[in-house]
């Protein structure tokens, strides 16, 4: 940047102070003495400075649209501390005043968080001139904004362990909940700031990629909102905070697809190792923030529920203290089988055999394990269905063997298939985000991705989860079977044969494949029922039907010969076929190419790991290891 341009930027910054002041002027008397002449100059300079980004105009518009509701909620938030009266019309003043009020500690922050104008947007939307507060744009060009970021970047994150979360979450009291809220409140901006800095360390050209820029802006917005939240002192404030965080979680569902696309498009500008490092950092940090946020939201909603002492024994927030490999494998195997059956047009996937210490019990976030196992099983099934040589006598595909091993510190799931293995050329890029350029091409067809199993869930397994009593009794009965089996046969795991799940519910729900349906974080079972229902009912009109049918399907799980005519309907759907409705059904088995690296990030998050060894020409073994004591700190890059 030339010195002239630098000077221009300074002018912009100076003027932004004034704009902020003007915005606040209506309601707050603490305006910072501004002159109308500089305001005019500001808009002029801003126009000049942003003109180089003219090619992004459409994107900017898009962002404005996206940003708008976020902004509303954000600006509404601080006013809640005083009184929850702010409407959208007064949101600008509320936000400005609160910014002024809360800025005492971080004086320069006021300037950087102040609204900015986007002349292009203004040109296209004249109406917006009257509402400058609705237009926020944080882009790499605004160099001096980083003054607010720097102190956060310089702060180290405070990593936690799973065990700390468990202990803390027990016997929740008001003061503990507020403590949790404030931990999340102070921690999230720090973690976000570190990632924002990572974005800033990308090559400049990459930063100008529209997808990357979009994510970058989202991060900035989130950072700004979160860093403005004052200390949470009451339960009401906490509720408001939870709403804010929920909103952010929702907004950020676009992050993975956008990041993937951005990385794909930028792959010629960054060396592969750097891309992988960047992506791993991003995803890891993303998990960490979601864990903190979801855990707190879950604790809050649990605390708020009238009978929270009674419900959800075993669940502490999103952590389940009685994770059993047998149950987890069973659930994910059913789901993966369903996915594969549907994507293959009704062909039965291979059997899944289970042996080893299926009854080991440990505390974990089930979602994390389920995501990994689901991805691995889906891959295994797909490969076996493609390459597996059917048994000469029975004609069955070679089964997938899952072995669970409990060591002194960890639990390992070994998933072994005979799907012909991975070709060496492909094996080399197994964990890479950038080696094969077209890898993420399918992300163009997806708008949102939570990277959880729930988004795959309109299937028996998760639905079975919903009916708590049913599931508990079911799993306990199955577990006792397993247990007996194991006691009798010691190490010689005869294994449980998990039959491919029946598909009868498809008759009710012709397209249960919803990739982008955002399942809100599973807080506990009761709340997940409600959230499931609401989100489902938005997309499908028959949640109740789904739930009931799937419940019956799980109870009939031993019935292995169900061939439902409705399969034909599924089959007629071309795999990969896309509905025109943007947020509607997608082929859930669509190969996104992020499953494996994402799984490893998940596995490593609490100190485990994921390894894949392939025997080309034969099959592949995957080893997912999880620490069973939860005493490992979050695997964090900073």
């Amino acid at each position, binding site marked *: 940047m030339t010195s002239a341009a630098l000077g221009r930027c300074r002018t912009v910054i100076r003027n932004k102070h004034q704009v902020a002041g003007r915005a606040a002027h209506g309601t707050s008397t603490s305006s910072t003495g501004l002159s109308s002449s500089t305001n005019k100059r500001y808009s002029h300079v801003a126009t000049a400075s942003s003109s180089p980004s003219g090619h992004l105009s459409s994107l900017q518009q898009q962002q404005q649209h996206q940003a708008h509701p976020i902004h509303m909620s954000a600006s509404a938030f601080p006013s809640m501390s005083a009184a929850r009266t702010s409407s959208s019309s007064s949101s600008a003043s509320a936000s400005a005043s609160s910014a002024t009020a809360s800025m005492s500690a971080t004086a320069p922050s006021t300037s950087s968080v102040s609204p900015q104008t986007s002349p292009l947007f203004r040109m296209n939307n004249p109406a917006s001139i009257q509402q400058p507060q609705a237009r926020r744009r944080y882009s790499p060009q605004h160099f001096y904004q980083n003054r607010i970021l720097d102190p956060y970047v310089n702060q180290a994150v405070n990593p936690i362990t799973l065990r700390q979360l468990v202990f803390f979450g027990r016997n929740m009291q008001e003061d503990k909940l507020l403590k949790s809220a404030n931990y999340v409140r102070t921690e999230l901006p720090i973690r976000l700031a570190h990632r924002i800095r990572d974005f800033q360390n990308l090559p400049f050209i990459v930063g100008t990629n529209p997808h990357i820029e979009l994510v970058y802006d989202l991060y900035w917005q989130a950072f700004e909102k979160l860093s403005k939240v004052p200390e949470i002192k009451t339960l009401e404030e906490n509720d408001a905070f939870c709403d804010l965080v929920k909103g952010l979680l929702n907004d950020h569902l676009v992050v993975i697809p956008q990041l993937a696309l951005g990385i794909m498009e930028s792959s010629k500008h960054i060396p592969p190792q750097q891309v992988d490092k960047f992506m791993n950092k991003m995803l890891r940090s993303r998990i960490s923030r979601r864990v903190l946020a979801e855990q707190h939201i879950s604790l809050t909603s649990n605390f708020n529920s009238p009978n929270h002492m009674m419900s959800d024994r075993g669940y502490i927030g999103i952590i389940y203290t009685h994770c059993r490999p047998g149950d987890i494998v069973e659930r994910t195997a059913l789901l993966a089988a369903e996915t594969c059956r549907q994507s293959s047009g009704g062909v039965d996937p291979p059997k899944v*055999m289970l042996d080893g*210490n299926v009854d080991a019990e440990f505390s974990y976030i089930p979602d994390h394990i389920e995501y990994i196992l689901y991805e691995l099983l889906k891959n295994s099934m797909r490969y076996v269905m493609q390459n597996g040589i059917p048994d000469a006598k029975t004609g069955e595909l070679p089964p997938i063997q899952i072995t669970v091993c409990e*060591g*002194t510190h960890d639990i390992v799931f*070994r998933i072994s298939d005979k799907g012909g293995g991975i070709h060496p050329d492909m094996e080399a890029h197994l964990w890479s985000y950038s080696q094969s350029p077209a890898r993420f091409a399918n992300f163009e067809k997806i708008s949102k991705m939570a990277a959880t199993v729930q988004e795959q869930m309109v299937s028996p397994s998760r639905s079975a989860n919903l009916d708590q009593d049913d599931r508990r009794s079911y799993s306990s009965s199955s577990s006792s079977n397993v247990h007996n089996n194991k006691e009798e046969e010691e*190490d010689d795991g005869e294994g449980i044969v998990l039959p491919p799940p029946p598909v009868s519910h498809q008759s009710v729900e012709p397209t249960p494949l919803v990739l982008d349906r955002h399942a809100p974080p599973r807080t506990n079972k009761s709340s997940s029922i409600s959230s499931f229902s609401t989100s489902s009912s938005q997309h499908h009109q028959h949640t109740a039907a789904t739930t009931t049918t799937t419940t019956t399907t799980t109870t009939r799980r031993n019935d292995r010969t169900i061939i439902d005519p409705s399969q034909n309907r599924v089959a007629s759907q071309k795999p990969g076929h896309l509905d025109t409705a943007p947020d509607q059904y997608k082929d859930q088995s669509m190969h996104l190419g992020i499953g494996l690296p994402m799984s490893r990030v998940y596995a490593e998050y609490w100190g485990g790991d994921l390894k894949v060894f392939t*025997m080309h020409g034969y099959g592949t*073994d995957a*080893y997912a290891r999880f620490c069973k004591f939860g005493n490992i700190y979050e695997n964090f890059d900073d």
Partner: protein
Amino acid sequence: MVVARREFFSQSEQRELDDVVSFYDDKVTQYASQELQTVTLKTLLGLGRSGSSSPEISTPTSGMQQKQTSSSTVPPIRDLEINLDVARYARKELPVRLARLLKATQKLPFIVGTNPYIKQVYKLYYDSFQTLTATPQEIRNKEDLDRFAGVLQTLVASHADVIPMLSQGFQECKKYMRKEDIKEYLDGVIRARIGIRLIAEQAISLREQRDNIIEELQEGKQELPPQGVSLLPRDVVGVVHTELKPADLIKTCASFVQELCDVNYGSSPEVVINGQTDTTFTYVPVHLEYILCELLKNAVRATVEFSQKIGRSALDPHGRDGTKKQVSLAGGGGSGSGSGAGVIVNQDDDQDLTKRPNEFGHPPVEVTIAQGEHEITIRIRDHGGGISREHFDAIFDYSFTTVKNEEDESDAGAGDSPYGVDSIFKGVNRLAMQAGLGGPIAGLGFGLPLTRIYAQYFGGDMQLVSLQGYGCDVFLKLKQIDETLDHLQI
């Protein structure tokens, strides 16, 4: 320590050990600074071996010569030339490689260099270096070749004890050097050693092979092939086999290991071989044999010890006998203890077979062979309880225990895992030593690191996954070395 006497020792070489390291002798430095001529496998297989099998390649003169000599039952000139080429290459290359090895040893800390074992090793290599450089550069004919092969043979034989010596030496020196530095040095030495041996043994064995064929021809046991066609058998070229059947080698190694295990523990687990059991590939059998023996030893021993630990042997809850598709081995035979543990080739890929314990309660060791497009993968699975996490990081470290070092054994067994840092199948290793098996060099606590170096030598790899409380999976990935013939460097 036995140092073989060499017939080629000149007077000057009968010096005292201490004189070996002469500060002013820069011959080593001179040689060491020469460029290494990395050998491709193609060279070792006799350069244009493919050419030799196509008759038209032979030049008219060689054809003539052959015609003349064929009556006197001398094999085609082509084979001799291959042999001569390899020998010439060895003559030129080995001194350089030895010099580099010496150079690396010279860079060890002075205190380590004064250790008698290390010094002994240095002397061995130094003598070999001197001997080689003293032999005439030109290898023109069969007489030169025979003489040179003799030199190589003594050289190879004299180096047989290098690994135990190094092991003992660094056992004594480990407090004077950083662990990583020792590892770096040893990795380098062992890799260099494999290369040197490979080149030398190839030259020797090509000559032997040729001599044997000539002998057979003279005795009329074999017909002289048409002119220009190589006499060398298609599947064995010196130390390289082009149609090596891993299943056969696994069978041999497994029954050998089972026998050792029977002797030591009174029982042993079955070994079930499944996957693509009839596949073949090109490899150096002594290398693969060493690797397999080492890995199977670990697996078998771990299984038996884990059985003892968890009382698996006593239980045997199944009591299922019979219906075992047991393929008795050609030459393998039952061991003295009559345990009857055998090697089962599980062609039907019977799942049950890989899980069923034998009458001692030992679950079988499962060996799976997979033939990929460019590589062979051999997976060895055992139910030996795995390796604890504390020990896992150290399994590829050198543990410096030697056959001689009896008193060290007591504390070596500290880890209850058979894969423990210091205790990699020691007792059996000793037996393997005595039996003269276990590949070109015996393990001696160097087992896993050495095995991995061997596996990686031709661009392959070996990886080990521990499922603690359950067992170990070892993935041995070996390149089809004939495919990488042109660029594979040794």
